């Protein structure tokens, strides 16, 4: 039963991943990505890692892919008449596929680990196990991740907010750079840019 379910999920994930690459419509691609992530969450459930499965659905399927959809709609990138493959990308893709197939084959040939009984309960299985590890052994990395999120947030503000110096800086403002004005005009998205933060 579990082998059948695993095989079904594996085929489902690969098919959805292929859909992400092959679809011409960006929105359909994003939705395929969402389905693929749900399939991966199913694999986590099979491994008894319920917490990871739930987090994957909440964070990636719920928030990240939704953000992708927002961006696709904001930039109005649906469809387009560009072909999905040019000759060069096709060649590179074929080469990558051959390399990947070689890698998978050598894995199947050499990397077989001996079968072992499953451990009683993995750390990702329950919220309590997870939390205990986070607040004892891995406390320091959690704190560092706090700083990582802080600078990521700061970076979004620095890179997206239009900066208007109150005091005139010396050298920079004398010769207005044509390119900088152009890119400023390109970045101006008055109403649209306020929609992203409203997303939960």
């Amino acid at each position: 039963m579990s082998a059948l379910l695993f095989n079904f999920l594996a085929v489902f994930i690969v098919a959805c991943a292929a859909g992400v690459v092959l679809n011409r419509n960006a929105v359909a691609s994003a939705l395929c990505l969402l389905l693929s992530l749900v399939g991966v969450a199913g694999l986590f459930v099979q491994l008894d890692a319920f917490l990871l499965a739930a987090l994957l659905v909440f964070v990636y399927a719920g928030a990240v892919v939704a953000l992708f959809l927002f961006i696709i709609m904001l930039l109005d990138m649906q469809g387009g008449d560009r072909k999905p493959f040019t000759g060069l990308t096709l060649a590179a893709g074929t080469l990558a596929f051959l390399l990947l197939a070689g890698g998978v084959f050598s894995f199947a040939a050499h990397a077989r680990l001996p079968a072992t009984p499953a451990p009683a309960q993995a750390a990702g299985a329950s919220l309590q196990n997870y939390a205990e590890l986070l607040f004892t052994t891995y406390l320091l990395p959690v704190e560092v991740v706090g700083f990582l999120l802080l600078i990521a947030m700061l970076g979004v503000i620095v890179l997206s907010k239009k900066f208007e110096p109150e005091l005139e800086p010396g050298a920079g403002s004398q010769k207005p750079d044509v390119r900088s004005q152009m890119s400023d005009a390109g970045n101006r998205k008055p109403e649209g840019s306020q929609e992203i933060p409203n997303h939960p």
Partner: protein
Amino acid sequence: MDPTTLQGIAATNQWSAIGPELVLGCLALALLGLELVLPKRQHDLIPAFAILGLAGVLLAVLAGFHTVADAAEPPVLFGGLLQPDRFGQIMRVFFLLTGILVSVLGVVALAKQRVPRTEFFHLVLVITAALMLLVQSHHFVMLFVALETVTVGFYILVSYTRTNARSLEAGLKYLIMGSLSSGLLLFGIVLLYGAAGSPALPAHSATPMGFDELHAFLAANPGNFLSAVGIVLVLAGVAFKIGAVPFQIWIPDVYQGAPTPVTAFLAVGSKAAGFALLLKLAAVFAPYAPLVTAVLGVMAAATILFGNLAALGQTNVKRLIGLSGVSHAGYLLIGVIAALHGQPFAPGAVVFYLFGYLLASFAVFGVMTHVAGPDDADQPLSAYTGLGRSHPFLATVLAVGLGSLAGIPPLAGFMGKLLIFVAAFQARLYGLLAVAVVGVVISIYYYFGWIQAAFFQDPLCPATDEGRPARTPVGLVAGIVLGFLVAGSLLLGFYPGPALADLLGLR
């Protein structure tokens, strides 16, 4: 689980041991607070606050250097996540110096741009603290989290001058290549974790991401295929950070587009972090030394040749310095390989080379910051014509920095190269040594082409003088710092004895 058990697990969480990093983190938060509190006219104080804070932390680390470095047994902190030792202390000093120098250059460079100021110094402080944690990490989780903090900080810093299209392009390229390298590194870590955690294999461990446990597992399982793939992927992920061929493609564009102080930070800080990791991982992966040597050996030879040959035709000095940095990564890789062959002083030689590289690179980047105009990405070699006559001080600093990078005898760069080559000779790496010597000879051509542009090209030729951006006059602090860099390069070259004695006691 009851509270006493939890306390037992958390007993090794000694926060005082990472005091310098904590102070830097708090300082970074304080900068943001200061920007809110201080009136707008006094915002110039914020960079001074950051630089003084970094200098204070540097003094504190130096004062407590020997208590940590000379401990007989390195303490286990945070349940084995961190292991501060002599090497970690030396690299802490290295990154604090880098942070100070980047901040000083940042003050000069940001004055020419219309960009927010405070956030730059905030990011430099956070990245410095993360780099310091990175070199002390003794566990893959800590390593990855610290490395990601550094990388995310660099994504922002690279695209910091966002009105410049090239800076944004560089940021995007660095984001994509950086994510790819993080993915490779993570995949390698996962394979190692899976292999070393498998209960059916000898010497398996419940915590296989700790370096000691992983080393024991690798020693007990020579020739494990999964581990071998994992090791190669981890090495590939780190090779992205140091810019070794074939993972160097992001270097020229990112180095050119990033603001000059950030380019310096990438060239020195990020590269040094990569080599500190490589030295640590080389010790962990020692049971697979033939594999690691083969991978790094091919990489080193290709890196030296590619870096030097590609730098020959460059006319933009930022691209030139980036590609020459690629070749320096190649020389350093030879030092890492010598360390893998059991040369006891090879790690010390690599660290000495890094210090020489720090002094020389920041001298060159300091001059570049002063010569550059408002468009930071556009720094042609022709902007340096006549520098020797109009700005003799800057030209001297440039000559010393470039000479040290090229490895001219009385300077620190020469001593660094000599030490690495001696280590390689004793490790019988004759082929790599030959490639390295060829690389050094090629590099002299483009380094001296730059010096020639600064000193010997006709400064009175109006055609080259016309479109050149105005050079910033050297301020007091920047002048002192540049003078210190020159003096350091000369001192380490003429009289490397004490520094070497300290470094060679690494193992």
